[in-house]
C-alpha cells in the first residue's frame, strides 16, 4: 500500500509534467538550483570540520534550526506545500491512517526538496569526520532532523487545512498581514538595535536555540565534541520527542481532516448592502475596482501576495542595517513599491474561470485594467508614500526625500503598467479560489518566477530616468535633481501606466477568449 501511494505520487507528477513542457523545464531548473545549494552546503560543512568546535556547533545548530523552521513555517509565507497527493482526495479509500502517515512521509522525503534536505542534513556528519564516533551520531541526528522537516511541513499543512477553511480565520490573517505592513518602520528600528551586536551574540543564540524543539537535535554532536554527554542525551531526547510529537499531531489532524473533509460549510455572517460597490462609481471600471478591493480584503490568496511586502524590506534591512549604517533603509520604499506594483501581476489568474463573467458581459478591456489598478492603488499609493517618508525619517536623511519619493512612485506606477500588460495576456498557475493558498503546483511557481524576473528587468529599465536623476542628486547633493526625479517619476510612470492599461486592455479585447482557454487549462 505504501509503495502504491508513492508510485501514485510520481505518476501524478509525471502526468502533470507531460501536460506542460514548460513545467518540466521549471522542475529541472529548480532541481539544478537545489543541487547547487546542496553542493554549497556539503563544501561548507566539510570546511567547518577544520574550524573551531564552537563555530561548527553554532553553525550547525542555527542552520539546522532554520531548516526545520523553514520547512514548517515557510509554506505559510510563500507557496510551498506540495500536495501532489492530497489527503482529502484519498478520503474515500479505505486506507489505514498509519499507512497513510507512512506513505505521505516517504513521498515527502522523495520529492526534490526532501532529497536535498535529507542529504544536506546527513552531510552535517562531515563536520565531525575527524572523530568517527561523533560522526555516526551526527548521521543519525541528521536523519531525525530531516524527518522532522518533512513531518513538520505535513503537520502544518494538515493543520492549516482546518484553519484556513474557516473564513473568520482567513480574514483575521489578512489583518495580521496588514498590521506589520503599517508598523514596518518602527519595527525595523527596534530590531536594528538587536542585530548590531549580532556577531558576538550568535553562540549565545545557538545555546538558547539548542534547547528549543527546532534546534535540539542538531546540538547533539556538538555536545559530544565538547565532552558533555549529559547535555547531548537531553538534547537528543528533545529532538526525538519533537519528531514523535509532530507525527502524533499530524496523525490527529489528518484523521480529523479525513473524517470531515474540508468542504467547510461554515455559513459566514450575512452582510447588508453593497459594500464597496456603493463607494465606487456605478461604471464598469468602478464595478471592477469594487470587486477587486472586496477580494483584496476577503480572499486569503491576495493576503498571500501582500505578506512578502513587509518581509522583503526587513531582509533588505537585515543585510545592510546590520553593519550599523541605516542608509540601507532608503531601499525600503522602492522595494515596497516594486512588490505592490507587481501585486496585480496574477490578478486574472486568481479570478480563474470566474473571469468568464467579464467576457460574457462584454466589459471593455480598458475598464477591466483600470478597475484592478484603482483597487490596488487605494492602499498601495498611501503605503508606498508612508513607508518612503518613514524610511527617510528614521535614517534622518530628509534631503533625499524628493528623489526617493520619485523613484518609489515611478516604480509603483511602472509596476502597475507592466502588471496590466502581462496579466491581460498570460494566465499563470496559481492556487484556485478557495484552495489552500499555501498550495503550490510542481514547477508552477517557477514558471511564474521566470516571467516575474523578466518583468522585474523590464521594470528596472523603464524606471531608469527617475532612478538616474535621483542617484545623481544623491551623489552631488543637488536638491533640484531630487525634485526633478519626483516629477519625472510621476510623469513617466503615469504615461507608462496609461500605455500599459491601453495595450493590456486591447490585448484583452482581442484575445479574451484565448485567455479564458488558458485559465480553463489551469483550473
Amino acid at each position, binding site marked *: 500500500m505504501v509503495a502504491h501511494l508513492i508510485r501514485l505520487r510520481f505518476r501524478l507528477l509525471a502526468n502533470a509534467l507531460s501536460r506542460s513542457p514548460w513545467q518540466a523545464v521549471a522542475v529541472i531548473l529548480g532541481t539544478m538550483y537545489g543541487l547547487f545549494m546542496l553542493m554549497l552546503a556539503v563544501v561548507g560543512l566539510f570546511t567547518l570540520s577544520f574550524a573551531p568546535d564552537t563555530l561548527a556547533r553554532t553553525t550547525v545548530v542555527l542552520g539546522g534550526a532554520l531548516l526545520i523552521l523553514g520547512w514548517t513555517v515557510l509554506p505559510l509565507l510563500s507557496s510551498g506545500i506540495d500536495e501532489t497527493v492530497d489527503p482529502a482526495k484519498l478520503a474515500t479509500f479505505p486506507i489505514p491512517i498509519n499507512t497513510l502517515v507512512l506513505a505521505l512521509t516517504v513521498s515527502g522525503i522523495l520529492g526534490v526538496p526532501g532529497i536535498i534536505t535529507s542529504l544536506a542534513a546527513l552531510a552535517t556528519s562531515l563536520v565531525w569526520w575527524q572523530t568517527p564516533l561523533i560522526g555516526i551520531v551526527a548521521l543519525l541526528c541528521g536523519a531525525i532532523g530531516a524527518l522532522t522537516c518533512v513531518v513538520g511541513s505535513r503537520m502544518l499543512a494538515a493543520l492549516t487545512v482546518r484553519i484556513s477553511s474557516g473564513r473568520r480565520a482567513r480574514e483575521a490573517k489578512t489583518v495580521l498581514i496588514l498590521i506589520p505592513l503599517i508598523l514596518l518602520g518602527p519595527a525595523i528600528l527596534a530590531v536594528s538595535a538587536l542585530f548590531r551586536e549580532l556577531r558576538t551574540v550568535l553562540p549565545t543564540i545557538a545555546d538558547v536555540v539548542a534547547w528549543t524543539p527546532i534546534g535540539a537535535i542538531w546540538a547533539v554532536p556538538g555536545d559530544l565534541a565538547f565532552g558533555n554527554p549529559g547535555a547531548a542525551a537531553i538534547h537528543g531526547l528533545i529532538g526525538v520527542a519533537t519528531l514523535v510529537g509532530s507525527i502524533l499531531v499530524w496523525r490527529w489532524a489528518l484523521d480529523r481532516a479525513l473524517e470531515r473533509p474540508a468542504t467547510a460549510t461554515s455559513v459566514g455572517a450575512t452582510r447588508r448592502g453593497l459594500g464597496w460597490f456603493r463607494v465606487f462609481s456605478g461604471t*464598469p471600471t468602478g464595478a471592477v475596482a469594487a470587486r477587486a478591493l472586496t477580494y483584496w480584503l476577503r480572499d486569503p490568496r491576495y493576503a498571500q501576495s501582500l505578506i512578502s511586502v513587509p518581509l522583503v524590506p526587513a531582509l533588505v534591512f537585515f543585510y545592510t542595517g546590520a553593519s550599523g549604517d541605516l542608509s540601507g533603509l532608503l531601499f525600503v520604499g522602492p522595494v515596497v513599491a516594486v512588490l505592490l506594483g507587481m501585486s496585480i501581476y496574477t490578478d486574472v489568474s486568481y479570478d480563474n474561470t470566474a473571469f468568464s463573467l467579464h467576457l460574457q458581459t462584454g466589459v471593455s478591456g480598458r475598464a477591466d485594467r483600470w478597475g484592478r489598478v484603482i483597487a490596488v492603488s487605494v492602499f498601495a499609493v498611501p503605503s508606498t508614500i508612508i513607508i518612503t517618508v518613514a524610511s527617510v525619517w528614521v535614517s534622518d536623511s530628509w534631503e533625499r526625500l524628493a528623489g526617493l519619493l520619485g523613484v518609489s512612485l515611478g516604480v509603483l506606477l511602472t509596476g502597475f503598467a507592466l502588471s496590466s500588460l502581462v496579466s491581460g495576456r498570460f494566465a499563470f498557475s496559481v492556487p484556485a479560489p478557495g484552495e489552500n493558498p499555501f498550495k503550490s503546483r510542481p514547477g508552477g511557481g517557477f514558471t511564474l518566477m521566470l516571467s516575474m524576473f523578466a518583468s522585474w528587468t523590464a521594470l528596472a529599465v523603464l524606471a531608469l530616468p527617475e532612478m538616474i536623476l535621483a542617484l545623481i542628486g544623491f551623489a552631488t547633493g543637488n536638491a533640484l535633481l531630487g525634485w526633478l526625479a519626483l516629477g519625472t517619476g510621476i510623469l513617466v510612470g503615469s504615461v507608462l501606466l496609461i500605455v500599459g492599461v491601453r495595450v493590456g486592455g486591447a490585448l484583452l479585447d482581442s484575445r479574451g477568449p484565448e485567455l479564458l482557454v488558458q485559465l480553463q487549462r489551469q483550473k
Partner: protein
Amino acid sequence: MPDVNSLSPALEISGLTKRFGDKLAVNSVDLVVPRGSFFGLVGPNGAGKTTTLSMATGLLRPDSGTVSVHGTDVWTHLVESKRRIGVLSDGVRLFDRLTGLQLVTYAGLLSGMERTVVAERAADLLELFDLDAASGTLVVDYSAGMTKKIALACALIHAPQVLVLDEPFESVDPVSGANIRDILHGFVESGGTVIVSSHAMDLVQRMCDHVAVIADGRVLASGTTDEVRGASTLEDRFVELVGGRRRGKGPEWLRIS
C-alpha cells in the same frame, strides 16, 4: 421597408468547427434556432454541447464557421451581440467571494447599466429566485442549486433577448426547477428565445418546442420536438440516434446473493 433583422432567426450557426489537439470537438455544426422558441440541445457527455454554446456566445473562438444572433455576426460584433445574449455557463466559477446581491449587481454594472436600474432589477431577480433571504450571504456558502439560480440571475439582469443556458437544471431541487421553468416559459411567451442544454430527456421533451440532438460534434437531428421524436419518446429516439446502449446486467460478481 421591413426590418431585415426582425426576420432573421434568434441564433444561426453554420459550419461551426473547433478542434482541440487531435480531437475534433465540434465538426461543422449547422443549427437554426427560431425566434421565440424554447430550444433544447441534447447529447451524451463530451458531445460538444458546451463547446458549441461557448462559441455561439462569444466565449470561445471557433476555428471556422459563423454564428449570428438576431442577424448580427457574433464574432465581428462581439459587444453588440453580448448585449443581446444572456449566458449561464456550466463548469465555470463565479466571483463567489461576493454576496449574492453584490454578484448580480456586479454583472449588471459590467454590462454598462445605470446603477439605479441595476439596483431595481437585482432586487426583482433575487426575489424571483427566492434568494432575497440569502442576498447578504457569500455565494461560496450557497448550495449547488442556489449557485445555479444566482448565476441565472446574472445572465438575466441586462434583459437579454436570447438566453443560452448550459445545464441549467443540474443539481437544482424539483421545486426550484419548476419555478425556473415557469420563468423561462414566461420569457419565451413575451418573445424571448431560450436555448438549454440538458441530459434530462423527459424534461426537454416536456419543456422544449424545438430540439437538436448532438453527438461526436455533429448534429444528428434537429427540428421541432415532435418532428425529432416521431412516434417514440425523445429518450428512445435519442438512444437510437446516438447508440452505445448495452444489454445485460453486468458481471457475475456484482450481483449480491
